[in-house]
């Protein structure tokens, strides 16, 4: 009897435990986020008071928010663009008849697999002004004759953060694009050869349109990773110098965990979630990833 019931609702039994856990770790916290954003909740003062949309109103006059939003767009925009361009070039090379592709892929993947906080720390050490590797290299090559304090200038610090980010995340883009390229049938290229197409023409007219779905996936995943990333900023600059590398992710961390301004921190969290969704939808709208599939 029991066995029969088990067999009849088998598909639900299989899904049930996973969905239960997901409800606990995804659905509940997400609802809680929206709910908390409607409160003035301060852990230091021990106050929790319903304020409706007051926190959202406050956003408009919060100059920090707008400044960090700007930094976030600069960071995400540059890191994602550079990763995509580099990823396209490298995957296109690896897609050719190259010896030791497997070994190259292993080497290439390493930066992606180490913890991002270690990436941030390592680049902080590379860019360190006196004993760091970057200044040492530049000096030994005769490019500069005095060490430069890269991380005490707002602009170079941001460039450092972006570099660490695309160093770590370009491998992911490359792997996704390479998989897309390898699924293109060879006959297409052979036909193009018969017509006397150049390498660039083949790349532009065959490869690029056919890997559009992969480009879409790489773009979306890459943007999601960059917009949420706290690790690199936290470890490399701590938001500094001044506030020149503070992004929305670090703002949420400071508000929610360091200053215990939990209500307002949740409001910024909601905004970050909405920005993420808006970006994914606009990529879908612009790239129409389904259109390259048969």
């Amino acid at each position, binding site marked *: 009897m029991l066995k029969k019931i088990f067999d009849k609702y088998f598909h639900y039994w299989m899904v049930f435990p*996973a969905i239960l856990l997901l409800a606990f770790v995804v659905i509940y916290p997400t609802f809680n986020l929206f709910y908390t954003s409607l409160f003035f909740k301060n852990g230091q003062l021990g106050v929790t008071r319903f304020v409706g949309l007051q926190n959202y109103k406050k956003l408009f006059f919060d100059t920090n928010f707008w400044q960090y939003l700007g930094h976030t767009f600069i960071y995400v925009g540059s890191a994602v663009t550079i990763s995509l361009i580099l990823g396209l070039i490298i995957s296109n090379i690896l897609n050719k008849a190259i010896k030791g592709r497997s070994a190259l*892929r292993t080497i290439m993947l390493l930066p992606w697999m180490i913890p991002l906080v270690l990436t941030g720390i390592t680049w902080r050490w590379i860019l360190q002004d006196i004993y760091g590797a970057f200044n040492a290299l530049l000096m030994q090559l005769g490019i500069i004759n005095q060490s430069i304090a890269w991380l005490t200038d707002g602009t170079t610090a941001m460039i450092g953060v972006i570099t660490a980010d695309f160093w770590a995340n370009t491998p992911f883009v490359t792997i996704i694009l390479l998989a897309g390229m390898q699924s293109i049938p060879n006959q297409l290229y052979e036909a193009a050869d018969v017509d006397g197409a150049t390498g660039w023409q083949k790349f532009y007219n065959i490869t690029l349109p056919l890997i559009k779905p992969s480009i879409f996936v790489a773009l979306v995943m890459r943007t999601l990773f960059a917009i949420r990333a706290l690790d690199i900023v936290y470890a490399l600059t701590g938001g500094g110098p001044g506030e020149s590398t503070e992004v929305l992710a670090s703002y949420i961390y400071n508000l929610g965990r360091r200053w215990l301004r939990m209500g307002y921190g949740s409001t910024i969290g909601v905004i970050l979630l909405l920005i993420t969704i808006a970006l994914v939808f606009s990529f879908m709208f612009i790239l129409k990833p389904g259109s390259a599939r048969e």
Partner: protein
Amino acid sequence: MKFFKNKLNSGDNISLWQYLFLGAYILFSLFPIYWIIITAFKNPSAVLELPVNWIPKNPTIDNFIYVFRERPYLSYTINSVVAALSSTLLCVVLGTPAAYSFSRYDFKGNKVMFFSVLVSRMIPPIALIVPFYSMMQNLGLIDTKIALIITYSFFNLPFVIWVMKSYFDEIPTGLDEAARIDGASKWQIFKDVVLPVTLPGIAASAMLAFIFSWNEFVFTLVLTLTPAAKTLPIGLMDFIADDFIDWARLMAGGALAATPAIIFGLFFQKYIVGGLTKGAIKE
């Protein structure tokens, strides 16, 4: 498997410029890792010598001994291993049956539930730090490994379900049919017929889930306070908080934190790449 074919694909040979570009990129990729390793094996005072030694003069393992003896890196390492292994096990055990059900059965709520799994991968963990902190505080789980194991399933469980479903989708249903005609129960079909064929998929998703958990930073930073639960990546920040950063010993800690990445990358690259592309591309 199509991702690993080694045939000539776009027909062209590689130009000199492309070789140079690839070479420069490989140098750029490897240099920071080389810098971690040489710093980790240098004497702490040798790190502060100019000009910089690109090859350590008297390589030493003292930094590794130091982080284990004088700093709580043994606890950090144990916490990292326990949290990552447990979360991986939990998510593979719960996620694989769910993925099978999503792949094979067309039941009420199938689409909605699977779609919500997809959407949950879009939620930035950083946005949820306040809810998770409050939740774990209410449960009295702040600064425990249990909090980490539960929290890591936020990203691991959707990932495992997603990847495993595309592995199951690739296995012909004829296999299930044949077993059913032979009188196997639904559970037996799953356990004895389909599951053994998807072992590479399970290996791939388990390895990636392990790496994601091992590298996790945001949740762990928020939910842990002491060596009772702090993991290696969080432990590295101890050094940054010091007035004077002890780079040699910090990089020894960093090398420890990078170990799984290096092991998985060198020996199981095929699984990692397979799982990654499956996790990303299929719809």
